């Protein structure tokens, strides 16, 4: 009987690795950085890493919830740019950061609702719907802005992207609050349970009475809300926002989620992993910068990390199959 227990514990160890491995890797990277890379441990540098990781990270929290349900949102890149633009414009008109935040979140929710409508009512797959919306929102943005960026540097507005509480940058504080909220929604609410159920097995979830359409619609709106928060902070950080802001943002966000151990086909994922992955990507770029590496090399390194990290599970599966078949 002991032999049946053994593979069980091995499986658990594997599961533990896929869930929290990224946190260990991040910890190791920071230890190595502090020990061997000059200026890495400089408080200003650490603060800047945390700040930089927040913009992608906050959007990645919403995306984690979508991917847990086996859904996907490619439109976040265009939405981020449009929401950031709306938020800078609102700030310059009203001077109020709250109004700027509401404008950005409203844009996110509108795009999210349209995504949700097409996926749940017209029944177009999420990938295609959000790919279409990526193009549409980018087009709307160009038409509205005429290709020009909005600018505003009122002190109350730019505080949100640039200030810090001691060593903790404001965007990172917001990031952590968002992560706690996201984690609580996934773990303790019925929406969270529905998302896991849909991602694990949609037909079974349907039979079990999970309101698939409502949950799907909501998760797109939730993605929009998080993107809106990212957008406001980014607009505040840069004092400006216009077309072409953060090209390829959608893919960076998805990369964070997946590197964080969330399964692309749904049913499994953690917010902790996503947060760690967002910080990991930024840390990696920062380390290479400090080592005076060519910025082009950083891209290669980022891609290699992604492919290597995601290979580990597949390779382990194959090894397990081989030992199992013998």
């Amino acid at each position: 009987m002991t032999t049946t227990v053994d593979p069980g514990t091995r499986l658990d160890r594997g599961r533990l690795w896929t869930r929290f491995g990224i946190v260990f890797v991040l910890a190791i990277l920071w230890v190595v950085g502090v020990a061997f890379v000059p200026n890495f441990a400089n408080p200003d540098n650490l603060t800047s890493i945390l700040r930089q990781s927040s913009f992608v990270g906050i959007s990645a929290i919403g995306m984690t919830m979508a991917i847990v349900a086996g859904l996907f949102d490619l439109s976040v890149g265009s939405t981020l740019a449009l929401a950031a633009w709306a938020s800078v414009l609102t700030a310059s008109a009203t001077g109020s950061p709250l109004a700027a935040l509401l404008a950005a979140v409203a844009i996110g929710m509108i795009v999210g609702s349209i995504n949700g409508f097409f996926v749940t009512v017209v029944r177009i797959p999420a990938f295609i719907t959000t790919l279409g919306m990526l193009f549409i929102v980018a087009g709307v943005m160009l038409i509205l802005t005429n290709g020009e960026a909005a600018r505003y540097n009122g002190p109350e507005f730019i505080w949100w992207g640039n200030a810090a509480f001691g060593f903790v940058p404001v965007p990172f504080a917001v990031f952590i609050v968002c992560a706690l909220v996201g984690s609580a929604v996934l773990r303790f609410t019925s929406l969270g349970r529905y998302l896991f159920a849909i991602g694990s097995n949609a037909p079974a979830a349907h039979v079990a009475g999970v309101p698939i359409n409502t949950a799907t619609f909501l998760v797109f709106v939730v993605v929009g809300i998080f993107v809106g928060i990212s957008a406001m902070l980014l607009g505040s950080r840069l004092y400006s926002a216009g077309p072409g802001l953060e090209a390829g943002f959608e893919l960076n966000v998805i990369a964070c989620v997946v590197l964080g151990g969330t399964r692309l086909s749904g049913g499994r994922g953690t917010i902790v992993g996503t947060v760690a992955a967002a910080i990991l990507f930024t840390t990696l770029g920062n380390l290479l910068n400090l080592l005076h590496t060519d910025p082009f090399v950083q891209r290669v390194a980022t891609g290699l990390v992604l492919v290597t990290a995601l290979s580990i599970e597949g390779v382990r599966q194959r090894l397990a199959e081989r030992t199992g078949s013998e």
Partner: protein
Amino acid sequence: MTSVVDGVRRTALAVWRTYRVGLFVVAVGLVLTLLTPRFLVEGNLVNVLTNAAVVAIVGLGMTLVIASGNFDLSVGAIAAFAGAISLSVVPTLGVGPGIAAGLIAGAVVGFVNGLIVAELRVPAFIATLGTLTILRGLTLIYTGGRDIYLVGETGYKILSAGAMPVVLAVLVAAILAQVVARTRLGRHVLAVGSNQAAATRAGVRSNRILWVVFAIVGATAALTGMIISAQVLTANGRLATGLELSAIAVVVIGGTPLTGGRATMIGTLLGALLISEINNGLNLLNVPVFYQSLTTGVLLLAAVGVSTAGRQFMKRAILPLISRMSE
């Protein structure tokens, strides 16, 4: 009797699926001809066809990947990479070897994608997202972030001159359509796309199929990249940015489902033609270029929305009618 009815049903569905995009191409063409005298002239039509052909070539490779149940997000990066390799080989070895080098580079990189997806079991979306980043980086390192120009070598223009892109697109479509319809490789690709586990159990060497499929899409991406490079006689690390999403859009508008197991090369050609036609029309009608991104998006949603509605219409109205008539 039922088998005949089934046959008619199946043919009706297949014809509708393949050629519905063609209806839109013709309809849009008619509207544009009525709206502006500048549409139906030779020079303009060559433009429309050329623009369609450039995206269509990589779209055809993408159709095969999507039919195998996968994705390739790295095609834009492969296009830039192959363009750079090709342009730097041409001055020393000549045009022919330069083009061959580009194609080989694309196929090799694609093959590596296939290895990562099949052997390391990384989901294709992530694997090719990774190689996209890596290849863009490598191309930027290779070119030093600058442009590679081809000076004094006009022979390379053969790739983009006159009707060449269109001829190449039709050729690639014809070859891949034959592969899908008539070869064992094609059947196996569709089998893997329908159900990889079942295909493997049935004796299909799924992993090898994936190596080949990704190598093919790599070669088509390289061809598109080289045509774009030939048009401007320049290559750089930012060439063909976003090509991956346009290519996927063309495939989807053409009617190949993202779920795998089915492919229509003609549909992809027509899908590329439709987007190119509409964008050209907007240009001729002096609509600001900003609207082009909007059209692609609207078209994507409309095409899939219409096809979903159309399928319902076939199922609820046309097919019962055929059944009733046969009774």
